[in-house]
């Protein structure tokens, strides 16, 4: 059984129509796959390579360049929470916020809570420095946040259903 469904293949095929090469559909396709599986499984890399006329090593070369994609040993939790650590956020307490959230969740940046609800990450400037210190939940920014507000936000997410946020 192929891991990429017929619907997914159709969507990826539609992406390829936007570009002069099939390879250019790689990033949109990888986003689609990760949204579906919470990671990019090896089997999907092979099938995607085949579908786009590439060698699996080419797909891997691209996806591994971007810190964004996860392999199947490190799947994402239901929500991905990025805490900004760049200078404008640091100046207003970003590093402290990251540390507090690590403590609160009992995990290090890059790890996922054992209930599978939250993956915590550090981020470089999220482009929302007027909201410093800020965090990105999936792809929506929140700020300025103190530790209490951030913890409450995250606890609300944890209680949400199984819907994947990304």
């Amino acid at each position, binding site marked *: 059984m192929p891991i990429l469904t017929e619907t997914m293949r159709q969507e990826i095929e539609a992406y390829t129509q*936007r*570009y*002069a*090469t099939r*390879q*250019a*559909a*790689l*990033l*949109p396709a*990888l*986003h689609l796959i990760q949204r579906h599986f919470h990671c990019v499984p090896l089997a999907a890399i092979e099938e995607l390579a085949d579908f*786009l006329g590439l060698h699996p090593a080419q797909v891997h*070369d*691209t996806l591994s*360049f*971007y*810190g*964004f*994609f996860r392999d199947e040993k490190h799947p994402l939790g239901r929500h991905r929470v*990025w805490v900004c*650590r*760049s*200078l*404008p956020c*640091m*100046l*207003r307490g970003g*590093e402290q916020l*990251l*540390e507090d959230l*690590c403590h609160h969740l009992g995990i*290090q*940046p*890059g790890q996922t809570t054992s209930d599978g609800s939250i993956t915590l990450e*550090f*981020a*470089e*400037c*999220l*482009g*929302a*420095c*007027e*909201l*410093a210190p800020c965090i*990105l939940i*999936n*792809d*929506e*920014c929140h700020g300025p946040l103190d530790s209490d507000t951030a913890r409450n936000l995250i606890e609300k997410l944890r209680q949400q259903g199984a819907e994947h946020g990304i």
Partner: protein
Amino acid sequence: MEFEPVLLRHIAVPGIQNLEVYQAHGGYNALHQALELSPEQVVQMVKESGLRGRGGAGFPTGIKWGFLPKDHPGPIYLCVNADESEPGTFCNRVLMEGDPHQVLEGTIISAYAIRARVAYIYLRYEYGKSYRVLQRAIDELYKNGFLGRNILGKAGFDLDIYIHRGAGAYICGEETGLIESLEGKRAWPRIKPPFPAVQGLFQKPTIVNNVETLACVKHIVERGPTWFRSMGVPPDPNNPRDLGSFGPKLYCLSGHVNQPGCYELPLGIPARELIEKYGGGVWQGRRAKAIIPGGLSMGFMTAEELDTPLDFNGPMRVGCLGLGTAAVIVIDDRTSMVDVLYNSCRFFAHESCGQCTPCREGTAWMAKILARIRRGQGYLDDLDILLEIANGIGIIPGTTICGLADGAAWPVKTAITKFRAEFEEYIRNSRSRQASILAPLTTH
């Protein structure tokens, strides 16, 4: 004379994200005007306006467009650089979320001028709201004949706009890194020449412009180059290479100010006025120790240099790399420059794409040395080693492919030359008292 906002003029109008409301406020008049002109005439207007790129390098937009080969059979591509990742910078986001049609109108006019039939908006993934707002606006445009075939009845003017979402890498903002990323590869910047205008996306002539640059194009067409040149700073008569700094600019203000935010002002406002008058001054009644004039890469200005005008030349006159993105970061007098510089070095080490050895190794070692200094295990000699590394990496010394390395070097050079006494004191004191400064949690 009170400055009237241009780019942010309609940002607070309820519903301006909708085509109907945007049009009710004069939206797409500029596009109609442009379609009455030939593409060459539009290029000429942009040249005459003196518009310089807002993405960081300040290259004159009309001149860049002029590098496209004449009578090229096509395709020619337009890439809208919406990767906005320079620490301190968020004005593209404000424009895209707040007034997406303004950005799209500028994009359509520019595509018409350079004869592009496809435009890609390379949007950093983190800008989820921008993505949804822009995509909705694009859908509206297709439905109403502003995109697709024979746009607004103009025979032969076809244009598709696609949003291409990134995946979290600062280097995708460098224009050839952006192109490689769009092609589905790792975002390794290309050796130039050939420049993208000659050989860019899919090996075809390509123009890469910043979101704010393209938004300016709309207003230049609507109100004319002379109007555009009435704002800003004319060329310095003593500097034959100065092209002037014309037009409005979105200044981002962040860090230790009372009112961080995005402020639109004519190019050339002094840093002090921006901070005092618009940012409500330094927070908690403190004073500024240092500021960054235009995104982290530009390096530091001291409190004594705050009267520097923020035009394309001002920051250079005080040793900074340039105006950059005009994103001002304020650092108060209670902050340690050691912490600040460590944060900067960590950023660039994390974001170096790794293909040039001086940049990959240089940024990594600068971050390691700063981390060691910060832990209280620095040597006074480290400061000279840092300067030696910083002086050796970048396009300016000629050792790297792209400007990320220059951007990594400038904070180091300016911090250590302008704040050397503070670094020396920190190193001496921390060695003697074996400081228990916590190493950062995230040393990745």
